[in-house]
């Protein structure tokens, strides 16, 4: 079971080609980061995963069925997408209403509804905002409301579009523990982010995009080792990876523990 992109291209009705000949696979239970410059095609790519957009050419297959053959609503039960801007997603006037939308839509009984809504709110750390109007909450809390609303659906694949933008350290810790929890339950998590420190600490596999195409798909160390790939994708090495590279100690080390081990003695 997997999401598979085979030579996928997408052009908006205006003719603007946002994604060009992209191929990759996200396996069930796998976590993956997508990085790259603003406008590289990252958001378009993930919107193709859950059928919000359908390819202009090529095929996107979710668990064996192409998205072209399915309605967006039916794909959304398998692939959950959390919008970059929570205000594009949130529409209810209380957090509880927002989280109970999926249970109502799928006609779950009350027990199932309460269990799943409660669990999603706990994972996202927003239980105490149940009765708040999302519009009264700070942007970062709204982002976690948007995440919780998608978690309720218990999708096999979850896509987070720039969840780290503007996030503080407690928020990042919550996000990482949420991703860890989802992984332990066999859920795939695909995350778009610009934060390389977060990528280095949280992901092994990373896809880099530039100019509508995938330019790298592999482990963090290989991406951070290549000046050329980083330049094309407009990204930077984490500070410590750059430091040990400048010192000539390693091209591939990026984690604090491995870098600490490489630092020569202070004699």
């Amino acid at each position, binding site marked *: 079971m997997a999401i598979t992109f085979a030579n996928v291209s997408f052009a908006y009705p205006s003719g603007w080609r946002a994604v060009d000949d992209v191929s990759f696979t996200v396996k069930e239970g796998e976590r993956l980061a997508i990085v790259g410059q603003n406008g590289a095609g990252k958001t378009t790519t993930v919107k193709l995963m859950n059928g919000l957009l359908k390819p202009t050419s090529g095929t996107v297959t979710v668990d064996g069925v192409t998205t072209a053959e399915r309605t967006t609503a039916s794909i959304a039960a398998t692939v959950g997408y959390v919008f970059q801007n929570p205000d594009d997603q949130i529409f209810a006037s209380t957090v509880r209403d927002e989280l109970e939308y999926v249970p109502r839509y799928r006609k779950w009984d009350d027990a199932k509804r309460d269990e799943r809504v409660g669990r999603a709110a706990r994972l996202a750390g927003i239980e105490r905002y149940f009765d708040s109007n999302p519009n009264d909450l700070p942007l970062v809390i709204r982002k976690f409301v948007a995440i919780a609303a998608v978690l309720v659906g218990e999708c096999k694949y979850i896509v987070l579009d720039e969840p780290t933008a503007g996030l503080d350290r407690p928020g990042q810790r919550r996000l990482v523990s949420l991703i860890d929890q989802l992984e332990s339950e066999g859920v795939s998590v695909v995350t778009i982010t610009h934060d390389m*420190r977060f990528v280095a600490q949280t992901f092994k596999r990373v896809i880099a995009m530039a100019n509508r195409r995938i330019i790298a798909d592999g482990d963090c160390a290989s991406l951070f080792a290549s000046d050329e790939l980083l330049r094309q994708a407009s990204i930077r090495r984490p500070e410590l990876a750059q430091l040990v590279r400048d010192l000539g100690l390693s091209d591939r080390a990026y984690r604090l523990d491995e870098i*600490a081990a490489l630092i020569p003695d202070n004699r």
Partner: protein
Amino acid sequence: MALISMQDVSFTYAYSEAPALTDVSLTLEERLLYGVIGVNASGKTTLCSLMRGLIPLFHPGTLTGKVEIRGRNLLEWDPAELSRAIGCVFENPFTQISGIKDTVFEEIAFGLENIGVPRDEMIERVLEVVERLGLEELIKKNPNELSGGQRQKVAFAAIVAMDADFIVIDEPTSQLDPEASDAVFEIIGDLRKRGKSIVLVEHKIDLMAQHADRIIVMKDGRVIAEGPTADIVTSGVMDEADVPRPEVTELALALQGTGKAFPSLPITRAEAFDALSSRRGG
């Protein structure tokens, strides 16, 4: 005369029970770059809104204590004059963009137009900032068609074009890719060199450590520390406020007390490199 002085300032938003700021006393000097750090909802944005008079003029609420901007009580400033004196970039670029202009070029020129800058000078200033931020491809686009990151750049460009002496910038890079973030910080660094006074809210502590003269640390609506950047980011107040340290400082702390220890705690990659380069091949 101080740029800003606050004495025992507290503020509670209308319809809110808890205060957003509590007993804040701060003095900000001219021509420095102040970084403001703290977790979400610690009061950073409220502090910024206060410094540019949005509180209490635009956001109602209960303000106590005394706020002076360039020696004049905040409440005595004419709002229009204050908005000319202080440029401000909002965190949410969707709020900053006017929504009434058809092109990015006009959007960036909007503020200049409002204060009556002559047409030729206006065009020159807009084109200059467009070039510095690499926005050439966007200037004919409709601002409403831009991505989040592109809007953020346009909002920043509009403020740089205004050329105010004192600029309050609230998370200018939250939606930008690393290359664009570096470009924004380079421009902020330039503004500082040109003698501008800047207050900058930003989570990217590595960039903050490189550029800020002083750091203000906030927690639960209070200022829990204010001081030179190196003193603050190497101190325990970072843990108390639950904000990250620069990566190189974390490394140095991890090596403290071992045979690999740094002579002193670095806060930038350049400092760490200098401290370690003599050890290479050793």
